[in-house]
Structure formats: C-alpha cells, structure tokens
C-alpha cells in the first residue's frame, strides 16, 4: 500500500522535493457529541504526497476544498505538523533539520495568503508590513536603505510612495494582495507559496494579480507553488499541475498533459465541471459527471479514495491504493489502476 510517485526527479534544478509527505491531525472521536477527552480519531489531511518544484517554474496545486491542498502548502513551511515523510530544500532535509536550516528555509520560502486583508496586521503601516521580512532576515540593514528597498518593491507591484504610511484598511482587496506580494518578495525568496491568492478578488482584479505574479516570476526567476481551486486560473499561470483528492495525489504532470489529455477520471470530472462563458456550449453540456461530495477524511474509502464518486470504478478499485506512477503517454503520474489498461 504505497503511493510513492516513481523515482523522484533530482536534477540540479530541483529546489523543493517532497517525498511521501503525510500530515495527520488528531481530533476527538464522536463528531457532534465529542468532548475534549473523548478517544481520538485521525484526520488524514495529507497522505503520502510526493512532488517536486524546480527553479523558475510554477507548480499549480488544485483540488476541491477539504482535499488537503492548503494543509500541504502550510506543512512545507512548518505551519502544519508533518507526521511522516521528507521535505528537502535544495537537497537538505528540513523536517528534523537544525534551527539554522529552518531560518534559511523561511527566508528562501515565502507565502502569500488567500484573504488579503486578514493577512496584513491592521496596526502596521504598509511600510512596516513590507519591511518586516527584511528586518527579520537581513538585520543590520540601514534605515535609509530599508526604505529605499521597500519603496522599490512597492513600485514593482504597482503601488507607490504615497502608500507607505497608509494602513491596510485603506486599501481595496486587490491592493492588499499587492502588499502581500511585496512582503513575500522583499527578502528575495526562491520559492513563493501562494495559497488561493486570487480567489477572494473580483475578476478584473484577479487577472491583474495573476499577470503580476507571472511577470515577477519571469523577472526574478522565482518558483511558485500556486494553490487554487479555479482550474482556469491555475492553467493560466502553471507549468506543471498537481491534482489532489482527499489528501492524495491523483495526477501530476505538465500543464499541457493534465489539461490537454487528462488521464485520471477525477481530473476529467473536475475539468468538465468548469463553466464556460459561452451559452451555446453551456446549454448543451453533458450532465454533471461527478455526483456527491468529498467523503470524510476521518474515514476515507479503502483502496482508491476517489472510487466512491468515480464513474469508472470497478471492484478492484476497493483493493489497493493505486500508486501515482507514469501509466501511459503523455507522461503524467496518475494514481488510477484503470489508466493504461487496454
């Protein structure tokens, strides 16, 4: 019963490599009548996930709410407890690493959050917010130099000197997200984890932020881990895409392969559910492929976790957990025993 995703790619370009990462939470058993001292049950939020992020690429991480994508993102920088598995940052183990390594990781890996306003301290000015990572990670920087760098960063994300002394509540959602991006980038990280960075924004603003992230990535040769539930947005920004369901990897491959020739039934169902802004297509679309909702991560189905909603499930799917391996062309890793079987 393994889901190790074949031999991990370890070229020199690999920044982050995650192997068999598992995050379990312990919760009181018994649902609504549970008490703090009730026996514990295990929420399997992330289960044996393996993937890697290379220098200068964007990996999109998609799945429904509750699939563990945010927990995975948070576990990478130590905001969620890792139960087992390994996270390597440029070849060095981070999970049981020394404190110094953790500090290094936290400088090299930054995060952008979903709710742009809630992730900014309301009592700090924009200048203080954006300067904070530099104060923490590059102590000894002069006051004038600090301000110059904050200003340059703000200008890069489309804000200006006028905004330095303002407070977060004076900004719109899109502007707050620009501040969040400036804060993440000022310490010159190599990887930025974006947890649903545009899902709280209006369409016209969302496109601005997606383009900004794309431009910054190219300019600074950043790597992005872009967590989102909007498949069209992920397509617009990613090079490779990881599809998760109930804590597990369903499919991981190049964007062209995952979107162009999706192999896993779950990926296909997800893509089919995305509405198209064209009445001619929408009015004649196939009925919904995917019925029901996510099963509970407290008690995931045996075998393939997707089998209870899968239109192609057979008896054998209840047996073993399928490994996410290359099964057919194109070379995505797919966790489905039905793929590649003729």
């Amino acid at each position, binding site marked *: 019963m393994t889901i190790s995703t074949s031999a991990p790619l370890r070229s020199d370009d690999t920044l982050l490599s995650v192997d068999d990462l598992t995050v379990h939470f312990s919760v009181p058993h018994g649902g*609504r009548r549970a008490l703090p001292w009730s026996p514990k049950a295990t929420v399997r939020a992330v289960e044996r996930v393996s993937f890697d992020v290379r220098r200068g690429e964007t990996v999109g991480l998609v799945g*429904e*709410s509750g699939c563990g994508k945010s927990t995975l993102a948070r576990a990478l920088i130590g905001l969620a407890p890792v139960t087992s598995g390994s996270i390597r940052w440029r070849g060095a183990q981070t999970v049981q690493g020394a404190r110094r390594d953790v500090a290094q990781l936290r400088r090299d890996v930054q995060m952008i959050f979903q709710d742009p306003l809630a992730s900014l301290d309301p009592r700090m000015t924009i200048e203080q917010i954006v300067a904070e990572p530099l104060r923490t990670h590059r102590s000894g920087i002069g006051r004038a130099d600090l301000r110059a760098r904050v200003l340059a960063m703000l200008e890069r994300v489309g804000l200006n000197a006028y905004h330095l002394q303002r407070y977060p509540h004076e900004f*719109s*959602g*899109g*502007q707050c997200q620009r501040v969040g991006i400036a804060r993440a980038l000022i310490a010159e990280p190599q990887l930025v984890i974006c947890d649903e960075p545009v899902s709280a924004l*209006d*369409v*016209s*603003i*969302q*496109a*601005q932020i*997606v*383009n900004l992230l*794309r*431009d910054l990535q190219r300019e600074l040769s950043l790597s992005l881990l872009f967590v989102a*539930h*909007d*498949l*069209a*947005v992920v*397509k*617009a920004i990613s090079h490779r895409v990881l599809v998760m369901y109930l804590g597990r990897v369903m499919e991981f491959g190049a*964007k*062209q392969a995952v*979107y162009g020739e999706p192999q896993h039934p779950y990926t296909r*169902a*997800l*893509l*089919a*559910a*995305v*509405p*198209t*802004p*064209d*009445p*001619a*297509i*929408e*009015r004649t*679309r196939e*009925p*919904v492929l*995917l*019925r029901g*909702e*996510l099963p509970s991560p407290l008690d995931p189905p045996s075998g393939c976790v997707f089998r209870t909603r899968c239109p192609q499930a057979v008896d054998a799917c209840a047996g073993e957990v399928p490994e996410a391996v290359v099964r057919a062309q194109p070379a995505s890793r797919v966790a489905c025993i039905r793929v590649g079987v003729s």
Partner: protein
Amino acid sequence: MALLEVSKLGVRFARHDGGPVDAVQDVSFALESGRTLGIVGESGSGKSQTVMALLGLIAPNGTVTGEASYRGENLLHMRTRELNRIRGERIAMIFQDPMTSLNPFLTIERQMTETLQLHRQMSRRAARMRAIEALESVRIPDAARRIGMYPHEFSGGMRQRVMIAMALLCEPDILIADEPTTALDVTVQAQIIELLRELNRERGTAIILITHDMGVVAGLCDDVMVMYAGRTVEQASARALFAAPRHPYTVGLLNALPRLTDASDAPLRTIPGNPPLPGMAGAGCAFAPRCAYALDLCRRERPILKEFEGGVRACHKPASEIAGLRVEVQA
C-alpha cells in the same frame, strides 16, 4: 405584463460622515414568468442592493426610489405586513453563504416548517412531510433523517441545497439567488446550477441570478444585465451579449476571465485600475478612468442607456467600434 417590472430603481445610503452614497441608480429591468435573468458585476457594483431593495431588505439608513411592481403591485410602497405576504412566499431568496443565512441554533426541520406554518397555516406534521419532500426534490439523500440535523452538520453544497429547498417550499414565482455558488467548489457548483436549471425548466420558476461569474451566467440565464458602479451599463439576451458584447466593460470582463480553452502562455487580458468607491464616481461615465476607448466626452458627460439591437447599452463610443474587441472563443 411582466411578472416583475423594475423601473428607475435607486438606493441611497445616508452617512453620518459626509454626503449620501448612491449604491444603485436608475436601474430598470423586467422579468417575464419562467425566464432567468443574470445580474453581473464586481463587488460594490450594486447588484445585491438592487434585489435587496425589491424585498425591503435595505439597511435602515438606506432609502429606495423608483418603482418595482410584482403582478401590478408596487413592492416599494408596501407596508411590512403586505410585503411579508409576498417575500418568502411568492418571491424567495437564497444567499451566498448558506452557513450564515441558516440559524445555527435551530434544526433544519424547525427552520423549514416555520415558513409553511406562517404562509400556509399548515400543521406541524403536514409541514414536516412537505419539508421532507422539498429536501428530496433537491436530492438530499436520507432527507427524513437529516431534517432533524443542525446546519453545521451539513457540507457547504448540502447547506445550499437546504437553502434552495427552503426557498421552494411555497412554490414561489421568482427565486432570487445571490451568488449561490461563489462559496462552493466547481464540482458542487455544477450540481447546484444544474438543479436551478431543472427548477426553472420543470416548475417554471423565474430566476434572478446575481453573480460575478460569467461562466455561471452562460449556463443558466436567458437575459443578462451588467452593472458597474451602481448603474446598468449593458443589458441583452445572454446569447447576444456573449457573442458580441457592446460595452467596453462587458468586453473587459469577458476578456479578463481565464478560460480552459485559452492558448497556454498568453498573459490574461486585464482591466487596469480599480472600480470606483461607492459615491466617488464623477460626472462622466464611471468606467471612463479604466476604459481603453474613453473619449473626452466620456469624462464630462455620463452616457445614457440607449436601445441597441434588442438590448440596451450606456456608452458614447459607437457599438460598431467596440464590437471589434469581442473575444474570440475557440471552438
């Protein structure tokens, strides 16, 4: 006569610091029985306040002007008591966040039977039977058992189904859905949209769908009204609007939407700038500061809504020049 006819609707809020703010101005539309209307716009465009005004749900510092007649009766001049006969019974509403619009202290049964006991004077037992039927009609499995549960025991998609079932209890003529799928996953969204489409087709319930998602509108609506900064900028049949948007804002919205059919590596087409804060729009067209096609005239004088090829649009620029912008949708 249309089922619901709204003309020159305005919503103005008084503020204790500064002058009043106009959230909605000069909005007119008609909804025929059995039709579906989409109201599209970004946050702050006034789309929610428009329908809240119809149901008398505006905050106490707000005043509503204009007319809104439902089967010939003006909703805006009704006393609360008369309005209560109509809202919840003839015109029902579902909201974006099903968790905050259900009472967390009451079981689903208690919340559903209340409507029936109030509007239909049903007995508790009959109301319960009817409520279970309604839950089954929105495909909630094991409805007879689940009716005794509390809102937090349902998932987001199931809660939205409960809201829809509740709204349908009295078989309303009009269902107003305010961002019903915004908080849901795409897979669940597709199920809810399919459910609304069935309701419309099978029971002939007219639907007003408020959303910022053009994809959802395309799947459900016959007609579309696009709002910007409290005003209607374009209104047409969905078919016409998606095929050839005639207002630069509509074009911008459609262009800004990432699509699965997009060529992979092109940057998204954006609308620069931010929408104006409510009450901050100047004398000209509210969209002019963000519009690539703005003329001097646009900054001085607000364009009025004019009829155009079966729809209306508010733009100084001739439609023929804007039609050239239309998005090319790949087959």
